[in-house]
């Protein structure tokens, strides 16, 4: 059999035989062996691979948890307790899965912040970035439905509050919520569909990650200078240089992750997550998982109806504003490539943007704190200021800075960057 033109020759004859029929080894060598990486990529570039590892860990532990899980309101809570007490290593599976969700979000949030800092969302990587935001949204949906499965107080009430968000949509809202629930409250039909979707979505995410990596391998990776590689001098083959670097980062990350799993497995979880769901009693305070807190705080920041001036006809009720604000905060990320007008990619050379971005990070942390506290009081104002900054950053500062900011000189190529002269 003659070799297709675009495949390469392997020494091992079995590999050669397979590759002639299915050029998978050619593909692997091209994409993960000789693939040119900008030589100055720092450790922030390791978090994509870390996130993918976390996804695989979630799928593996999830499949085994599902073998012992019963999606029925009368049995779900107890089946999870049985996993914890009676199933061999069930406690380990569950603690890895529970904390794995948190560390998956940690990895992805760092990965996204890397993109914001070094301008990785800009041309030619807009679509790559948008696919990434789609992954984030799918992850949020998956984690939200997974959290409902143990059927605890937090499960049931979290599910109630978040599904009720959709009732803010005019006209169809109430019908939509009934459809989501499959009834008139969060009950057995809801739990069943959440389990079905929680099982399915991670595999959808895997597919979207494949597209994400595909798009990445068309444009290549960005780097701390934001200057595209100009010659071979600017890059290094992925293997062994970045396989080794990424492995080191991965082992460090796993060490921290597993330390939490073994020594503080409940540090990130609310006590009310260990009480059976009671649809007749709301816990004193509903607190979502930490990775949702900033968005939850944005939701709660809208407390005043907007009227048509001089009348009392409400055009935008507070509730609808909150929901729009929460979803809008994610959609803004999607259109960010077109909001940013600056020619310079990396924040390294953008003295003003750099500080604005830092302020965005601070405001997200503040929102996270406000979201974890009871509603109302003086903290509400703090949350409103932070929410205002979030939107101001993306809608005003990012577009305007492109025109008014005086950027620092950008090196002509990666190799001309003083940091890269060795």
């Amino acid at each position, binding site marked *: 059999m003659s070799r297709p033109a675009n495949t390469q020759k392997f020494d091992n004859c079995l590999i050669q035989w397979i590759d002639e029929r299915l050029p998978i080894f050619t593909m692997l060598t091209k994409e993960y062996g000789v693939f040119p990486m900008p030589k100055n990529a720092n450790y922030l570039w390791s978090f994509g691979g870390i996130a993918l590892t976390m996804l695989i860990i979630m799928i593996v532990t999830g499949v085994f948890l599902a073998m012992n899980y019963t999606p029925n309101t009368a049995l779900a809570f107890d089946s999870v307790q049985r996993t914890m007490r009676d199933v061999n290593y069930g406690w380990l599976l569950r603690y890895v899965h529970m904390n794995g969700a948190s560390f998956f979000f940690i990895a992805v949030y760092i990965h996204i912040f890397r993109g914001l800092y070094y301008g990785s969302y800009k041309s030619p990587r807009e679509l790559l970035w948008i696919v990434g935001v789609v992954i984030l949204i799918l992850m949020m949906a998956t984690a939200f439905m997974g959290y409902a499965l143990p059927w605890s107080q937090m499960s049931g009430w979290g599910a109630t*509050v978040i599904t009720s968000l959709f*009732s*803010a949509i005019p006209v169809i809202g109430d019908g939509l919520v009934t459809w989501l629930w499959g*009834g*008139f409250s969060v009950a057995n*039909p809801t739990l069943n569909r959440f389990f079905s979707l929680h099982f399915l979505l991670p595999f959808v995410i895997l597919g979207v990650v494949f597209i994400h990596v595909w798009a990445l391998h068309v444009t290549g990776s960005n780097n701390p200078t934001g200057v595209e590689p100009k010659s071979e001098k600017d890059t290094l083959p992925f293997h062994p240089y970045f396989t080794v670097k990424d492995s080191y980062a991965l082992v460090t990350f796993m060490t921290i992750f597993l330390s939490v799993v073994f020594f503080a497995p409940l540090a990130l979880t609310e006590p009310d997550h260990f009480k059976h769901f009671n649809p*007749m009693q709301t816990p004193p305070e*509903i607190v979502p998982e930490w990775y949702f807190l900033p968005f939850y705080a944005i939701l709660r920041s809208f*407390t005043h109806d907007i009227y048509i001036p001089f009348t009392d006809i409400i055009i935008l009720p507070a509730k609808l504003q909150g929901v729009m604000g929460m979803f809008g905060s994610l959609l803004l990320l999607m259109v960010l490539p077109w909001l940013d007008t600056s020619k310079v990619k990396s924040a390294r050379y953008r003295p003003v943007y750099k500080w604005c971005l830092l302020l965005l990070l601070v405001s997200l942390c503040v929102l996270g704190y406000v979201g974890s506290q009871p509603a109302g009081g003086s903290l509400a104002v703090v949350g409103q200021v932070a929410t205002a900054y979030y939107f101001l950053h993306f809608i005003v500062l990012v577009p305007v800075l492109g025109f008014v900011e005086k950027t620092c000189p950008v090196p002509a190529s990666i190799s001309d960057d003083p940091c890269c002269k060795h």
Partner: protein
Amino acid sequence: MGSTKDGATRRDFLYLTAGAMGAVAVGTAAVPLVSSMNPAADTLALSTAEVDLSHIEVGQRVVAVWRGKPIFIDHRSAEEVKEVRAEVDWHTLRDPQSDASRVKEGHDQWLVMIGICTHLGCIPKGSKQGDPRGEFGGWFCPCHGSEYDRSGRIRKGPAPRNLEVPPYKFVSDTLIRIG
């Protein structure tokens, strides 16, 4: 192949109609899938609940259950009803409703409502002794701080509507049937 002046052929037409039929087929196939997620017949089977009011004392609030939802029942005193009606001009409220329109005529002291916050579905506090009742003495939702008055009307916070009044009627002076 016949071709019109602008180059459209019979084949283009067939492609388009075949594509359109395909889209209709997919849409049709989606109907049972989407519909299966709506409440099933057993869930819909309208249950009614009867509540005996005879042992609820004046000033007492109790919580009954209907369709899996909490029902707040408040046995108000005559003065309280008067106060609530005089306290505010109901036309100025966010969800303008008079107290009289939220109760059954002749049973004005009995307030019967679905105990679900119209914001995002939490169950407001205030039915138990010692619960926080908010600034207006009615119910307080701990989730995002909505405050309802003694008629269950939204007065403060993010909830858009008053606590909903379920369909119910007085079977006798001390018995109601909800649903």
